[in-house]
């Protein structure tokens, strides 16, 4: 495996603040680092579990490598390297247990710093220099926007973690996560199901918020419930006034739904708590980034059954399926580079690698761009063990294969399931368009 990282250059305060804002818009500091080492299998038991990675336990693959690539954002304040590093850990496990029909996977990870020319250069590097035959694990603030036309032209079908709208609205990108819009849909949908009188939806004030806001607006309109859309400059330095504004706008029977990165959401919720505002509305909601045990711990018991968070992936603490055990075993044995440990980021990396390996195993003949991408496109109803539903690529003009999710709530310092798998409403026109295309 080869990891090529480009050092982030010196950048000014404005650029840093803008980048933080973009992540918030993406709602994608996505995720949950529940960092519970006690749940991770010990290395000895992990080794026996990880022998299930491939078809020949304990036999190293020595054939011609299958080159794959991925592009991730890695800059001060915003790093998605855990996702690609977890995919890399999975591939290492596969390589140590027979590989793909005896062929090891060689995974090239390119990192970028939110610069479009650099992102385009990374894609060209992977294709022209590294001669990759498949792209997996992409998680970038801008990559889908910048590269989707390039991948479409070359016939690559990308398996990624989506942030930008193009990750969900173009033909050659399919994500394992729901992204900020559909996660916000899920949070608003839960609030509407609790019969709140009004929804206040607040997110960071950066380009792209209009796209995200369209989903919750459609859901509220269909439920004949008024919705107030707010935006905040990030990083937030006046959380008190933000919290007061939200609560005043929602009213006692209303809901406040947040779409921010975990640090920003925590700042608002803590401010609300310090000002004694948490009970001044019927409920608080949040998109996936709030789904962290750390946030639940930092907030304390006052938020038990008061804050409801959309969760895109299967809760790792309360699940003991074979996939979840394998994920934890691979993380323990091969995931030394995964700094966040157990959590949504590494779950996404695991799921993406799983799907890629499943696709590669179905290839007959040589591993070329054509054969590998045809196999990716043919993945249908694949059970990753990490999502509510089977994952399908297919020949669709847009892809939202993860559109069913959980809702969790703090419970004395931990996030616990408040609502099981629930389909995101097709009242969101994008979800409706996807289900129509996918024949759902």
């Amino acid at each position, binding site marked *: 495996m080869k990891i090529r990282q480009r050092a982030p250059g010196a950048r000014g305060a404005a650029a840093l*603040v803008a980048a933080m804002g973009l992540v918030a818009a993406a709602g994608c500091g996505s*995720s949950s680092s529940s960092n519970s080492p006690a749940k991770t299998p010990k290395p000895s038991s992990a080794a026996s579990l990880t022998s299930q990675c491939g078809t020949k336990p304990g036999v190293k693959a020595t054939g011609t490598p299958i080159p794959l690539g991925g592009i991730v954002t890695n800059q001060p304040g915003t*790093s998605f390297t855990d996702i690609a590093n977890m995919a890399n850990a999975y591939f290492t496990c596969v390589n140590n247990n027979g590989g793909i029909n005896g062929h090891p996977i060689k995974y090239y990870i390119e990192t970028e710093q939110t610069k479009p020319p650099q992102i385009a250069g990374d894609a060209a590097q992977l294709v022209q220099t590294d001669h990759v035959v498949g792209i997996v694990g992409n998680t970038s603030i801008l990559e889908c926007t910048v590269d989707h036309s390039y991948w479409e032209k070359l016939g690559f079908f990308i398996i990624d973690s989506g942030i930008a709208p193009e990750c969900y609205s173009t033909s050659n990108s399919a994500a394992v996560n729901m992204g900020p819009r559909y996660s916000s849909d899920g949070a608003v949908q839960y609030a509407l199901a609790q019969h709140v009188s009004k929804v206040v939806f607040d997110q960071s004030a950066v380009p792209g918020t209009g796209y995200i806001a369209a989903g919750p607006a459609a859901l509220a309109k269909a439920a004949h419930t008024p919705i107030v859309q707010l935006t905040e400059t990030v990083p937030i330095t006046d959380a008190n006034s933000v919290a007061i504004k939200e609560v005043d706008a929602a009213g006692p029977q209303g809901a406040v739904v947040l779409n921010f990165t975990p640090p920003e959401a925590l700042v608002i919720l803590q401010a609300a708590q310090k000002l004694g505002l948490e009970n001044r509305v019927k409920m608080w909601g949040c998109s996936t980034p709030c789904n962290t045990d*750390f946030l639940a711990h930092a907030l304390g018991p006052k938020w038990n059954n008061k804050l409801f968070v959309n969760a895109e992936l299967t809760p790792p603490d309360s699940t003991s399926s074979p996939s979840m055990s394998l994920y934890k075993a691979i993380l323990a044995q091969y995931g030394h580079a995964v700094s966040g440990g157990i959590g949504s980021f590494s779950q996404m990396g695991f799921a993406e690698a799983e799907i890629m390996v499943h696709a590669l195993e179905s290839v007959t003949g040589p591993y070329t761009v054509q054969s590998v991408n045809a196999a990716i496109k043919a993945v249908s109803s694949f059970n990753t063990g990490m999502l509510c539903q089977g994952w399908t690529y297919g020949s669709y003009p847009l892809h939202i294969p993860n559109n069913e999710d959980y809702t969790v709530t703090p419970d004395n310092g931990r996030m616990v399931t408040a609502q099981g798998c629930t389909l995101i409403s097709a009242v969101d026109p994008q979800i409706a368009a996807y289900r129509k295309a996918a024949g759902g």
Partner: protein
Amino acid sequence: MPSWADFQPFIVSGLALGGVYALSGVGMVVLYQATGVVYLAFGAVGAMGALIAWSLINAGTPEWLAWLVCVLFGGGVTLAYGMVFGPPLARRDPLVKAVATLGLTLVLFGLMDLLWTTNGGQSRAITLPTDNGGFTVGQIQVTWTQVIGLAAGIAIVVVTEVFLRYTKPGTAMRAMANDREITATLGVPVRRVEAAAWFGCGVIAGAAGLLLADLVALDATTLTFLVISSLAAALIAQLRSIVLTFVAAIAIGLIHDLITPIQALSNYRDMTPFVLAAVALLVPARQQLLSQSREEA
């Protein structure tokens, strides 16, 4: 237009925000008065001290010890910077001195990004015991930490004013800020006085970092660049008056938050420090220009 009742909660939050700006702004003016340096690393030093305290608390260190380490870290780093870079930069233009502190800011910011990564969506918080108590104004809970934040600003203003005006070392600091060489020829132990000024400012930065980590957020970016808004208060006071800096900071916080319920202006409220600073700088400049024109006529 919102009613008076709608504005009331924002007076409380505005005072708290003003107190936040005052803590940083006053600290910067104190060092400027004493050394002639605009210390742009004030926020980064406090942020790193707070992150160290957070790590220590999570590792089981008693909270009081972690807070002490935070304050001493601020003092130590600032003292080290002042002792190493202060003398060689002493004769340079104030702008050069300020930009040099920006270098320290970037070094600390890079270190924080490396040591307290945000990968995996980690979020951190410091909660002080004073968060759990307080009183209610209208429908808004005011915590003792917010009161301490505001009181700390007032205390720093009073103590610094008294120190600089009425004590020997304070007079020496002011003299040194005006002309380092003449002060030295008068027999003032310049290095020692300078060291005291740098250390004192660093201690304020560390204490402010701890309070701001609780009042605003324990986030390297937020705390590092909060200094930019605070600098507006210092600029309104033209870096001369500590009292005026404090008053300007409170005014900025109040105006900022009172704009919040006005829907048409709410999204522009973060411009408040810069608009007020620009007005404060332009009005005297215009008056000066007019008086010059009159004299020439």
